[in-house]
């Protein structure tokens, strides 16, 4: 019993992959866009987020830059995983674009770019 | 000697964790693990591992914490090999571990 229960978990893994993989072209395209969302969307989101944080944090310049930059990887990986955990791809894109947009507007207002 | 003490504590902790598992206990002692034994193994394991961590951090700070991570890796590797390939040695190794622990403990206290 002991060993069976262990087997159940991992052996699921490639089966799913395999089943899904052989599904269709549209599935592949959606996977591709998910990766695009995770890598590029996540990157842009993180960049804007940490830039904003660097300005907002009540620390001196150097400290806020060092701290936010150091934490960037953490934010990036959270977004990355979140992209794959959410079911609908549309929601992923909308959320990323919206949040990034809002943060960017705030950032621009503070910096006086607009 | 301090390092040896920390490592043997860490090793003992993981050994206890391993023995607190039904299959490993049965392989070593050919008996069934009772609940009471399981709890005492787990308690000893947690106490020793915390002791090892505290000793490492107290004696070397951040460097000690790094060392502690290394001790954990080494202990788990050794125990994995021990339990998968040479279960019959577990008893002897445990006794050896205990005596090294006591020896290093004494020498740390004396010097």
């Amino acid at each position, binding site marked *: 019993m002991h060993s069976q229960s262990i087997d159940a978990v991992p052996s699921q893994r490639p089966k799913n992959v395999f089943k899904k993989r052989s599904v269709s072209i549209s599935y592949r395209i959606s996977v591709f866009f998910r990766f695009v969302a995770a890598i590029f969307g996540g990157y842009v989101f993180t960049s804007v987020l940490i830039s904003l944080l660097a300005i907002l944090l009540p620390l001196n310049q*150097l400290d*806020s830059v060092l701290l936010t*930059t150091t934490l960037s990887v953490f934010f990036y990986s959270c977004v990355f995983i979140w992209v794959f955990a959410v079911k609908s791809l549309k929601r992923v894109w909308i959320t990323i674009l919206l949040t990034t947009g809002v943060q960017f507007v705030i950032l621009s207002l503070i910096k006086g770019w607009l | 000697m301090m390092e040896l003490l920390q490592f043997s504590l860490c090793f003992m902790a993981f050994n206890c964790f391993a023995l607190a598992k039904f299959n490993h206990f049965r392989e070593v002692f050919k008996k069934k693990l009772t609940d009471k034994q399981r709890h005492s193994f787990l308690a000893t394991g947690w106490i020793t591992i915390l002791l090892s961590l505290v000793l490492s951090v107290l004696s070397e*700070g951040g460097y000690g914490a790094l*060392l502690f991570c290394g001790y954990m890796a080494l202990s788990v590797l050794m125990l994995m090999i021990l*339990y998968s390939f040479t279960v019959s040695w577990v008893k002897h190794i445990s006794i050896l571990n205990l005596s090294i622990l006591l020896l290093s403990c004494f020498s740390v206290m004396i010097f």
Partner: protein
Amino acid sequence: MKENFFRSMTWLHTWVGLLVCWLLFLIFFAGTISFFKDEITYWFEPETHTVTHQDNRLAKQRQQINYAVEQLQNKAADSSSWRIYLPEPRNPLYTYSYAEPKQSGQRRAKFTETYLDPTTNEQIAPPRETKGGYFFYRLHFDLHYIDVRTARWLVCLASLFMLIALITGVVIHKRIFKDMFSFRKNKGSRSWLDAHNVSSVLALPFHIMITYTGLITLIFMVFPYPAQTVYEKGLQQMFNEASPIRARVESSDVPAPLVSMNTILDQVYTKSPDADIGFFFIRDANKESSRVSVYLNTGKEVVDNGAAFLFSGSTGELLAEQGKDWSASARFYDSMTALHAGRLASPLLRWLYFLCGIAGCAMIATGCIMWAKRLRERLKPQQQAGVGLKLVETLNLATLMGLPFATASFFIANRLLPLEMVARADKEILVFFLAWLAMTVLAIISSSKRQWQLAAWLNALVCFAVPLVNAMTTEGNWISYLLTQKWTLFCVDFGFIIAGSLFILQGKKLRTASKKVSTRRFQKPKDLKEQQG
């Protein structure tokens, strides 16, 4: 919903792992070896093996700096940069060097180095031209032949994927600590799974730490934006503020004599009485703009940029001091680099780092192999393997067996290539890549079990050849190192003997496995215990 989450995480774990696993293996492999970078470089320069560690290292530092400066004044009074490296526990040599005038089109000036015996201050014949351990160090983030920037971006992407794979791996493996000590032998892909789990779990804190901090070392290339938004002049301004010690000053042409080094050293020793000086750099000596920077070894503190002092070389005035009043975030950032590089490690911690690094290599290797095995087991008897599966199998053999092969060949090349060869260091590296190419060709021909076996024998052969060739081409050998207690050299040779024995074990295992006509598929024991340093 929960079930779905686990599924998507499993899926993600498999794919982010696989997309970059070969690149990751290269990074981990080269990175693990570069924990012993200095030791390997020492092995690679047998001309310096006669030098022994000096007694009272610290007490002699003042005299050594003075002596080197005196020599440099005689040899290169108008060079733009002098560097003095004092002996340290990992490297007994005492070295000074000066920059040659920059040629047009050169990005960095070439340095002429002089090696000294620390006990006698006698000059040692310049060692052979070689990159040694530094090659592996650069390889693990510059990937050698590729353009440096592209390579670093690739490495960063791969590390990010690694981090994602680690996190999802922890999420999906629900029983992660439950069967920590179980390894089921001879059970086909299940054994591979166990090996994969054990190698990841046993050094999990290390894996996460090394991947995260690895990204941090290159983070200002990936995310320069906070610095660019906060500082008007961007990164450069931030770096100048972060380490005033390294801030560049325009060099002036006004001559001004260099102050006595004793005035500078007196200030250093007043500030920190038991200073252990690592390097001593002088820029624009004998000019008004002259700067002297003194870097202290960090010891066991978890900091990368330890205490350092910047003096004016013409007046002897202390201009800046580093490491005194660091804020929490600066310390946080700096300790991450320190954790990654492991320069602080004493031999014990260094070996533990190395062990964890090997566990990382084993984790990646078993992951790659497991995936290929799974796909193969799923094939129906009459079904042909697809292009994808074939590619994966070829890449597995080429990378997992090719890198140890190339490494051992690199070590042998160092001893066998003629000493007077032009661009010798590059030729050694060429040998590394040629050997790897050879193994790749072998893998392209076929990636069957027989081919793995052949690769294992070849690897065992080159691994055993290293100490043998070393014994034939240099004064010392494995036994004499043991007798004269040259532990560094002994460990390199011994490491290759161990690696060779493991490859023999693997070859034997493969032979018995391929003889057995059974449903069990077994390819390679989990030991990808590669070279060591």
